[in-house]
């Protein structure tokens, strides 16, 4: 029994040879130690049943444990050798993977969604309206005077029968106020039309997002807070925002909101014409005449409204200098914003 245990201890030393063994040596070692008939360990195990019961258990356990250790060591070395063999046979893992085409939303759609999602967090749902509008909805119900310069045929596309292609999404303010009772909180994405020939910064058609909130007691503070919160969520939490006076027939007071230029962070650059600010949206408190035109009491209710151009916001944010790229639909352009292969 002593000699068997000593033999096992001696045999254990051989484990160390395995990690260095090449394929051939590994086979030899396997045969030498675990060979079905003449294997050193096999023979030891063969002698175990003949031992007297007192030592049989001890030697048997030690021999079996060593056998498992050898088996594990051989298997590990075999895997290692196999893996090494693989790279030798030419599997280049830096070769490109197999792709499928990836689609993507248009950049403007992505920005529209981003903007509407932020306003959804602030309680605004999505509303829509027609693109072929009546003059009443597009102008007069919005408190444009009958001879306002915006009514000039040179600024709008007319379709006849008192219809024109809407010049802004604001007519949907009227449609919403006519259809739903306050409180109203909506954002209105959609295409609008201006009679501007295409150039790097003008397009006869572009996307706009309108917003409208009407309820009892809404004030200039609610207005500022909502839009400033939007800006800080859309850009960065520390983005500076400013509001300054402006004029729109359908808001009073009217304001324009600028955000700190995202390119130069306010230091002044070519994009912001050295002002440090980027104009983002036109806005204001809903003009009482607009509420009255929709049969909503301007004494009881107040609210705020705004309009912004997601295409322009996208262009400044992504460094796109020419608006025509947004409509040309070159797949190389589209794929850049789809994050896919082309």
């Amino acid at each position, binding site marked *: 029994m002593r000699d068997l245990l000593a033999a096992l201890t001696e045999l254990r030393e051989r484990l160390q040879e395995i990690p260095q063994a090449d394929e051939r040596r590994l086979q030899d070692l396997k045969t030498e130690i675990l060979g079905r008939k003449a294997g050193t360990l096999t023979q030891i195990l063969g002698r175990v049943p003949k031992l007297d019961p007192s030592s049989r258990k001890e030697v048997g356990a030690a021999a079996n444990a060593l056998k498992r250790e050898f088996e594990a060591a051989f298997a590990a070395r075999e895997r290692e050798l196999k893996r090494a063999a693989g790279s030798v046979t030419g599997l280049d893992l830096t070769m*490109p993977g*197999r*792709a*499928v*085409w*990836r*689609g993507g*939303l*248009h950049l*403007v*759609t992505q920005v529209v969604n981003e903007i509407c999602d932020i306003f959804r967090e602030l*309680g605004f*749902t*999505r*509303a*829509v309206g027609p693109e*072929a509008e009546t003059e009443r909805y597009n102008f007069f119900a919005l408190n444009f005077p009958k*001879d306002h*310069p915006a009514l000039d045929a040179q600024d709008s*596309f*007319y*379709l006849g*029968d008192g*219809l024109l292609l809407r010049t802004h999404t604001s007519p949907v303010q009227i449609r*919403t106020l006519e259809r*739903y*009772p*306050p*409180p*109203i*909180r909506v954002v209105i*994405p959609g*295409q609008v039309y201006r*009679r501007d*020939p295409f150039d790097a910064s003008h397009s*006869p*058609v572009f*996307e706009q997002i309108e917003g409208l909130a009407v309820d009892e007691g809404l*004030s*200039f*503070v*609610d207005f*500022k*807070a909502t839009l400033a919160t939007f800006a800080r969520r859309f850009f960065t939490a520390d983005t500076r925002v400013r*509001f*300054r*006076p*402006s*004029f729109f027939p359908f808001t009073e*007071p*009217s304001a324009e909101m600028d955000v700190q230029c995202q390119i130069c962070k306010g230091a002044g650059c070519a994009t912001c014409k050295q002002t440090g600010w980027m104009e983002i949206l036109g806005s204001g*408190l809903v003009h009482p005449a607009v509420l009255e035109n929709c049969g909503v009491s301007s004494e009881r209710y*107040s609210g705020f409204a705004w309009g912004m151009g997601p295409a322009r916001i996208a262009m400044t944010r992504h460094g796109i200098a020419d608006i025509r790229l947004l409509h040309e*639909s*070159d*797949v*190389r352009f*589209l794929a850049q914003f789809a994050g*896919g292969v*082309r």
Partner: protein
Amino acid sequence: MIVSRRWLEALLGRPLDARELAESLTMHAAAVDAVIPRHQDLGDVLIGRVLDVQKHPNADRLSLCRVDAGGAGGPVEVVCGAPNVQAGKTYPYAPVGATLPGGVKLERRKIRGVESNGMLCSAKELGLGEDHAGILELDTTAPPGSRFLDVVPVADHQIVIDVPANRPDLLCHKGVARELAAVLGGTVKLPPIPAPAGGTARAGGDAALGGPRGAPSRRGGGTATAAEPGVAAGRSRPAAATSGVVDGVEVRLEDPEGAPRYMIAVIRGVKVAPSPGWLSGRLTAIGQRSINNVVDATNYILFELNQPLHAFDLAKLNGPAVVVRRAKPGEKIVTLDGLTRTLTSDMTAICDAKRPTIVAGVMGSADSEVSPATTDLVLECAYFQPTRIRRTRRALELSSESSYRFERGIDMLGMPDALRRAIELIVAVAGGELREPPLDLWPEPQQEKTIFLRPERVAHLLGVPVEPAEIERRLTAVGFFLAPKDGRLAVQVPGWRPDVTREVDLIEEVARLKGYDAFPDELRPYRPGTVPDAPEELARARVREGLVRLGLLEARTIPLGPPDGPDSVTILNPLSAEEAHLRRRLLPGLVRRVEHNWANGNRDIRLFEVGTVFRKPAGSPVEEWTSVAAVLTGARQPPHWSQGAKLPDMDIWDLKHHFELAVELAAPGCNVEPATGGEVGWVAVQPGGDVVGQAGPLEADAPAWAVPLFGLEVRLALTGRSPVAYRPLPVQPAVEHDVALVLPAGVSVAQVAAVLQRAVGPLLERLEVFDEYRGAGIPAGHRSVAWHCTFRDPERTLREAEVKAALAQGLVALEDELGVRRREG
């Protein structure tokens, strides 16, 4: 609107920082688009006095000057090439190291062997004019070494203001100064008109600048001493009448609707000449051309007070008379720009006894214009009805500084003051005398509007308390007059604020003068709205998402294009003939985008669009709805090295799959069926039979290397999809069976499937075509289609024999009904 910083300083009586004033205007009144420095680049230039002039030893045309430039080291030697340099005179001197306009830095250098320490400058070298024949002679008593800019007041800033349509009061320096006074503090006072030099106005260019050889002119500008008015302009006599005579000129107001208030002054004995430097300097500082003293004086008043004036030559008037009337249809006038204009009865004209002399509020005629020979002036100061002027301007396609202001509404109540100052100015710069007070025809005199303001309403709308004292202070600062009345404030609106018509307009005034930035911007609680999401938006989002998952890229094409059928909607005033119609389908626009891609060498193109289309059926109104379309061409998958150089391109079967998915997304419940009429393609059919979509190969202007193009388009339905009902997953095993069938010509796979499904019954869980074959072993005109059939009973395990029996049943039906038999062998 361009204003001059120096001009504003003269009105406010205090220096202004250009940046600060621009910021104040932007944040409280109207956005400043630009601040343009003028002549700020002359900071290095000094005043130099030439002590003596000697000939240059080595050059006949050069002289050697000793110049006192105030330096501690005494006079310096300067080489000068100007013929007009004279000892004892004063010139701009640029020392060594100075940077001149254009960025040139002056260095010490030798000229023909003599070292020159700087240079004496011409007007052109300083950017002050075109004259470079000689150096610029200055008339100043300032000590040598003074900064040129401190002595000659040419340094200025142009402030470019984006004045909104409702703020005509900001179209003049006084109005802008008023806003600045309210924000920055101070009061606005019209600067005194400089006394005429030597009784008559002298020729001159910019302030304080003589010509290189010309006579020196006086220093002027806003720093000049106060002057008494040349003559007492006299009070005008407001008259409810519509006619009158002033100094022998008969004035008749026959169109009081077009000209509610009309004033005329006659000034006799003027001498038309170039303006004094201070006056032309004011105008050139804001980019206006100086014309002559009379015209410049009227323009000065325009830009100072926003009152357009028109001076015309009394000698050229027939009558002499001034008649304000509607123009006669077809009446002609040659305007100042030399063009013949035809008037209509919608326009107001100022006429003499014979002919129109002015298109009211827009432009005067060439033949009544003030000329160097003019001695007696008729000076018009009017209020013209804004809408009338706008229509006239549009009809004649002719606009002017005057029409721009009349269109926006000038201050009807401020006219007498403006006219008085204009007369004073003309007399000061051009001489002459006013023998009778001006005539003031005002048939329906108006007063300042009064608006009631509730202080609590200010707090309600602005969301923060605002003390009544603050309200009063803010409004008073810009010219409103407040008096408490019945717990409210009665607010008198000054005549220059036609935009203020209701309480809320005053609340805006308080807010903007306080500063929008002064209001807090923390979110306050709000009530959720009553408006649900628009179903259109939900449907569009669903379709976009689905098509993106299919690997398509979203395009946004322009909805304007060529006509596309008789019910295309026509744009009455298109930008071009190619964009004169609204699209009635998305596909033509997408095909143009594919062609654009091909032109850029892009081969694999998969685009979709979700957009509005328009139609106008004969006799019906314009209809619009959302359409969904896609175009496909090129490789089915991105190339991969493992599959060799070329992968299969998309074909009609890729199209069919895309179409089926698009229909499922955009028009749930519709069936995709083969197109009829022998065309390759499919249509989407509503249960009622209406076709709402189609798909097929497309024609396009394709380069030789392009591969076939396919397209699909479906009308977007607004109905949401009903929720998917769960079907229990099968627990019983399936039995699979492959069968090849021979289909005679004219029998479709869909027919075979329908018959099989019906004949076999619910045990047939799934039928899948996996091969199609024509050729050897199959009768001509026939084809073999191989199917993979899956049978399953949800309740129990099927036996092979049952499946065989069921299939056999199906095969019998197929043979009976369609002549389809099992393929032998």
